[in-house]
C-alpha cells in the first residue's frame, strides 16, 4: 500500500492505497464519491472528467498516486449546498442532458473551459484571439461524448454562463 495525501473538494485526505488505483477509482471506490462516471476507462469519453489544480483531466487515465498534494474538484464540489452552480443550473434549464451519465464530466469540463476562455487560451479553431462563438465551445467540448445527443443544449448552457461572465 502506498501513502497518498490529496484534497478533494476542499477536504484533505490522508490515505494508504493500492498503487494500481486510478484517480477515478480512488474517488468512486475508496472515497465513495460516485458522481464521477466510468464510461470507457480509456480517456475516450470524458465521463470521468475532474478538475485537478485548475485543469480538467480524464481521471481514469491518471494513477491516484501521481496526485500527491493535488487539489481535486469533482461534480460533488460544484454546488454550494443545495444551490447549484451557474453551469449546473444552466444545464437543467437548457436540457443539456438526457440520461445524465456524461453530465458530471460535461459540467467539470465546462467549468474548466470557462477559465481557459478567461485566460485566452487558444484552441484549434481559434483565429486571431479567442472569441465566444459556438465553434469554440463545440471544439472544446468534443472530448466529452454524449450519446443522448444533448450537444446543442450543452453549447447553449455554456454560452449563457460564459456570456454572463463577460
Amino acid at each position, binding site marked *: 500500500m502506498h501513502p497518498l495525501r490529496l484534497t478533494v473538494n476542499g477536504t484533505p485526505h490522508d490515505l494508504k492505497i493500492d498503487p494500481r488505483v486510478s484517480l477515478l477509482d480512488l474517488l*468512486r471506490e475508496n472515497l465513495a464519491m*460516485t458522481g464521477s462516471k466510468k*464510461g470507457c476507462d480509456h480517456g475516450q469519453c470524458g465521463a470521468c472528467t475532474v478538475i485537478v489544480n485548475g485543469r480538467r483531466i480524464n481521471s481514469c487515465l491518471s494513477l491516484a498516486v501521481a496526485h500527491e498534494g493535488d487539489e481535486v474538484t469533482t461534480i*460533488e464540489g460544484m454546488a454550494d449546498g443545495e444551490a447549484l452552480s451557474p453551469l449546473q443550473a444552466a444545464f437543467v434549464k437548457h436540457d443539456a442532458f438526457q*440520461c445524465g451519465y456524461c453530465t*458530471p464530466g460535461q459540467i467539470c469540463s465546462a467549468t474548466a473551459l470557462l477559465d481557459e476562455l478567461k485566460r485566452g487560451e487558444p484552441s484549434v479553431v481559434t483565429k486571431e484571439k479567442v472569441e465566444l462563438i459556438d465553434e469554440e*465551445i463545440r471544439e472544446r467540448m468534443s472530448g466529452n461524448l454524449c450519446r443522448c*445527443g444533448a450537444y446543442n443544449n450543452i453549447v447553449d448552457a455554456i454560452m449563457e454562463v460564459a456570456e454572463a461572465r463577460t
Partner: protein
Amino acid sequence: MSEHEFKGLIGQPLDRVEGPLKVSGRATYAADWRGDKPHLIGFIVESPVAKGRIVSIDTKAAEACAGVEAVVTHENTPKQIPFGERAKGGRFAQSHAMMRTDAIRHLGYPVALVVAQTFEQARHAASLVRCEIAAEDGVFNPEKHEDQAVKPDELDGTPEVDTEAGDFEAEYGKAAHQVEGEFHTPSQHAAAMEPHATVAQWDGDKLTVHMSIQILGDGRKAFANTFDIDPEDVRIVSPYIGGGFGSKLGVHNEAILAAHGAKLTGKPVRIAQHRRNVFSNGPHRPRHRQRLKLGADANGKIVAIDHATLSIMARDYPFAEAAASPTRASYATKAMRTSHRVVEGDIPKADSMRAPGEAVGTLTFESMIDELAHSCGVDPVEFRVRNEPEKDPHSGKPFSTRKMRRCLQEGAEKFGWKGPVSRREGDWLIGHGMAAAIRPNLMQEAEAEIELSTDGHLTVRLDMTDIGTGTYTILTQIAAEAMGVAPEHVTVKLGDTDFPETCGSGGSFGAGSTGTAVFEAAKALKDDLLKRAAKADSEWKGTNSKELRIDGANIALGNRSLPIAQLGDGSGGISAKGAAKPGKEYKTMAQYSYGAQFAEVAVDAVTGEIRLRRLTGVFDAGLILNEKTARSQLMGGMIFGIGAALMEESLMDERYGAFMNRDLAEYHVAVNRDVPRLDVHMIEGFDENSNPLGSKGIGELGICGAGPAIANAVFAATGHRVRKFPIHMEDLLEHLPAIG
C-alpha cells in the same frame, strides 16, 4: 389540431424533475449503488475464440492472488436452465444462462469470472486465468453463408416475414422508370455512455439486483427462468439508467455472472462491464444486405417496390431485424414485395438498437426513393407528396392519422428547400438532400399506482424506467394535471419491481403506455375520493370527479372543500391503481408517427471529407407531452442518424468473428463539433386513436430519415451514389472533380 382536454401542465417545457440530482452527481446509476455491505468486484475473462469447447481451464494462479474470493467457471456455476429455454415470454424473458456448459457461444463470451475484494485485484487475477479451447469454425458473415439462410419464424415487431401484393414482376417490367441497388449497412453498437452494470445479492433463494435495464418485468422473468426460481423472488432496482437505445431492454452477461458470483461467495457482487466488454457481452444491431428495386410510371407515380434483406441472427437468440417493414407503409404502389432472410451466426447477441428495422430500412429505402425521383425528373419532395398513400399500402387499413404531407411541406419551407441544390464554395461541394421518416406507433400494457397523502402530496409508483427519455418529468406532468396540483406536489418513483408492472422503456411505447396508466390511476383516485367524500358529507353526492382538485391538505370542488384526513381510514394515504392496454384501434388502424428531414452537407472537393452543415426535421408525434424533453429526444435521434450516415460501424475480423473496433476511439459516434445547430419542429396534434393522451412515440422517430437525407445530400454534392453505410471519404475519392 384536434380538440383535447389537456390545457395545463401536459405539453409544457418543464425542466427535468430529476435534473438537480443529475447535474450534481447524486443520481445513483447501477454501478453507483453501494448498500450497507461492501461489494465484491467481478471481472470477466473473455474467450479469444468464437466457437468451440473448453478443454481445460486453470484458475489456480488467479485463486492464489490476494483478495480473490472466487473464480467462477462452467465447472462451478450454480444450477441453470439452458440458454434459450423457457422462451414463451419472448427473448428478454428466456433463460440467459451463462457458463452453464463448456460451450463457447461467441468471441468475448465469458469463460471465467474472477471475484475479488477490489477492482484492481480482480483485474490482475483475471489476467492469470489460462483456458484451453478446442476451436471450431464459426459463421460470421451472412453473405458468405447465404446457402444457410432461412426465413425466420417472425420478425422483431411483426409476424409477417414476407409480404407480396400485386404482381411485382409485371409492374416493374413495364415501369417507365426502373432503379435498383444493393446496399450494405453495418453492425452497430448502441454505445450508451453507461456500460452495462449489475450488483447482485442473494438472500436464500431471493435475488436482489441493482442494474441498468429498460424493461424490469421481463428482466425479472429472465432471472427466474435462468435460475429456475419464482419471479416473485427476484427484485430489480433501476432508478437511473445511463442511456439504453435498446441495448438495455433485457439482461446481459454481467447480470447473470454477478448472480453467480454472489451465489458462490454469499456476498453482494458488482460487475461493471468495461467498454470493450460491452461490444461482445452486450447486444448490437446486426449487419444487413438490402436489395431494392423500384419502378415508377411516366407520371412519376410509384408502381412497383421490392425490398429484400439478408441479415444475421445470433445462434439460439431469435431476433431478426425487420429492415423492410417501414417500406410497407411508406408509399402508394401497384405492387410490393418484401422479404427477410437470416443466417444463424456465432456472434454476440444481435438485438434491438434505436428504431430497429426503420433505422436501417429507411436509410436504404429513402436513398433509393431519391434515385427514383431523380430518374423521373421530379423534385424529391414533390415526388414523395405525389406518392402519398391514402390508406396503408400493405394492410389496406386506414391510418389513424397521417401528416406526412404536412411534414414534407413544412420541412421544405423551414429548410428553404429549392430542390437538390448542388453548388461549389471554394474547395467545398455543397449538396442538399431530404428524406421522409416513418416509425410505427405502439402501445403496451402498463399499470401504475398513485397515492395521496393526508398533506396533499401525490406519490406515483410504477416499474417504468427513465433512460434519459424524460419519464420522471412527463409522468409528473400527467399526474399533476390530472389531479389539479402543481408539479412540486408530485413525486414519481420508477425502476423497482416492487411497484406495479409496466412495459418499461422500448419501442417508443413507454410514454404513451405508462402515461396512460398514470392518467387512469389518477382518474380512479378522483372517483374514489369523491365516493369517500359523499360518504363523509352528503353534500358531495352526485358531483363530478372531473372537476375535483387537490388544494393543500384538502380536496376541493367548486367552493366545496374537505380535509383529505377525513376521507381515509386513518392509516395514512389513499391510493388507487390504473391500467393501460392497446385499444382496438391498434387492430383496425395503421398507426405511425411521421417526419421529414432536410440536410445540407459540404464535401471537400480534394479529400472527400464530409461535413454536415444543417439538418432540419419536422415531425408529427401526436400530442407532445413535454416540449423540452421531446425536442431533446428528437435531436438525439437525428444525431444517431448522422452516425448511421457517416460514422458508426462495428467492423468484424471475419477470420475470428471478432469485433475489431471495440472502444469509443474506434467506434465513432458524433462528438459535439460534428453536430451543427439542429432545426427541430413538432407539428401540434392529438391522435385520439393512439391513447387517451393523444401522444405517439417519439424516441426513435428522429433517427428515421436523418441518415438518408444526409446520403441524398452527399449525392447532390458529388453526383455519386454510395450504397454502403456509413459513407466515408474514401468512398468518394474517385468521384471527386479533377484537380487543377
